[in-house]
């Protein structure tokens, strides 16, 4: 953000990369040297839109967040242009910009903290504790790096689960017990297993002889964990055994640029 600020309407900021719409807003507020509590919305909106137009195509996947902010800016701008409603003297008038200003300020605070953490990180990289190597080794040893495997689709998962349930049905003992287990408990069991073994097979999470209702709860727990991004499911071959991994351990790096 060290580029020379350019005054006037034709802003040239598209060469800069921003972490997100708030990052861009902070930049515009600082560049224009305006009072944060009295932001000239028309000017900022114009420059914001100019940046959007300059966004390169490959950045489009993150454009949604910028578009959302652009819509917010335009809404505020239109609210400011509307005639003021008749209000009694003691009635509150909400500045349409206030919420946005508070967001910008909050974001800015965390950026400052991030700056300080960066300094601390730099300082920390110069000192070496005894035993840290072991910590890293432990971490690496705990999680075997899996072979490249295929993603598991929902239909793969359903097929595997249906198979399991059919096998269970062949077990002639029918149990009619109330479901006494919660999704949280099953989630914890899966976590526990992953912590202990680093990974597990989908099948092994369903204890033979357990009431089928428990299996369903386990299944729901797994679906939720996938949705929350806590675990990843992978399959060596089509219809093959489904493996469960904690997230990240099967994902190569390079995801930091969020």
């Amino acid at each position, binding site marked *: 953000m060290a580029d020379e600020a350019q005054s006037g309407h034709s802003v040239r900021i598209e060469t800069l990369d921003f972490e997100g719409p708030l990052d861009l807003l902070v930049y515009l507020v600082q560049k224009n040297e305006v009072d944060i509590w009295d932001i000239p919305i028309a000017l900022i909106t114009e420059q914001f839109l100019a940046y959007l137009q300059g966004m390169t195509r490959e950045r489009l996947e993150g454009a949604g967040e910028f578009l959302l902010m652009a819509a917010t800016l335009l809404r505020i701008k239109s609210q400011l242009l509307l005639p003021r409603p008749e209000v009694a003297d003691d009635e509150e008038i909400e500045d349409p910009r206030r919420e946005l200003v508070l967001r910008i300020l909050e974001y800015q605070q965390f950026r400052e903290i991030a700056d300080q953490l960066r300094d601390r990180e730099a300082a920390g990289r110069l000192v070496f504790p005894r035993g*840290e190597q072991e910590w890293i080794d432990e971490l690496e040893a705990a999680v075997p790096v899996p072979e490249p495997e295929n993603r598991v689709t929902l239909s793969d998962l359903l097929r595997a689960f249906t198979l399991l349930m059919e096998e269970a049905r062949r077990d002639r003992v029918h149990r009619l017990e109330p479901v006494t287990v919660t999704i949280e408990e099953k989630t914890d069991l899966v976590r526990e297993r992953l912590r202990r073994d680093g990974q597990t097979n989908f099948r092994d999470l369903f204890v033979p002889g357990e009431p089928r209702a428990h299996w369903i709860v386990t299944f729901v727990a797994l679906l939720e964990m996938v949705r929350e991004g806590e675990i990843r499911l992978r399959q060596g071959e089509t219809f093959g055994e489904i493996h469960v991994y904690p997230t990240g351990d099967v*994902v190569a790096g390079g995801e930091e640029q969020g």
Partner: protein
Amino acid sequence: MSGPPPTPRQIVESLLFAADEPLSARRLAALIDEATPGLVADVVRELNADYLREARAFHVQEVAGGYRLVTRPEYAGWVAEMRASGATPRLSQAALETLSIVAYKQPVTRAELESIRGVAVEGVLKTLVDRGLVRVAGREEGLGRPLLYGTTDHFLEYFGLSSLDALPRPDELEILFADRERQQELPLDDGEGITGEDA
């Protein structure tokens, strides 16, 4: 093997030397007969004074609620080269911003993080969890019971913080937070703000 009995200073030094994680004053005190955490703190100060006077290449650092031995920054070049295989990349801006919010708002959901940063944080969170800086700290009650995230002890170690209270807290931070509360309590002064520059 004869000689004077070991002093608390020597015992603490041996424990710190052999430990692979920060040892708290309480833990150290429990390991030494008739020692209090206060005595341990004194002993650590003495040790550091000795190390400084003797120009040793390491000293005791207070971090994550405990003490550990670390090399001095002057030797970073050599030690880093020796440990090159274990070197971790620096955290990205996105990761540091996300980590800052987690540190202050914990336990916090992904949705809250995204609303403050204004961007998706899924990939960044994953990186932070992988690096042992952030952990799942539970689930929020309510719709969807989203996961809650918090910082780890390794977070404190990584940034050389003795505790969460030692987090950098710029003066303006408190003022702004306070300001925000005030702003929410008090009605805006009539006539200000709404008259726009847009006229």
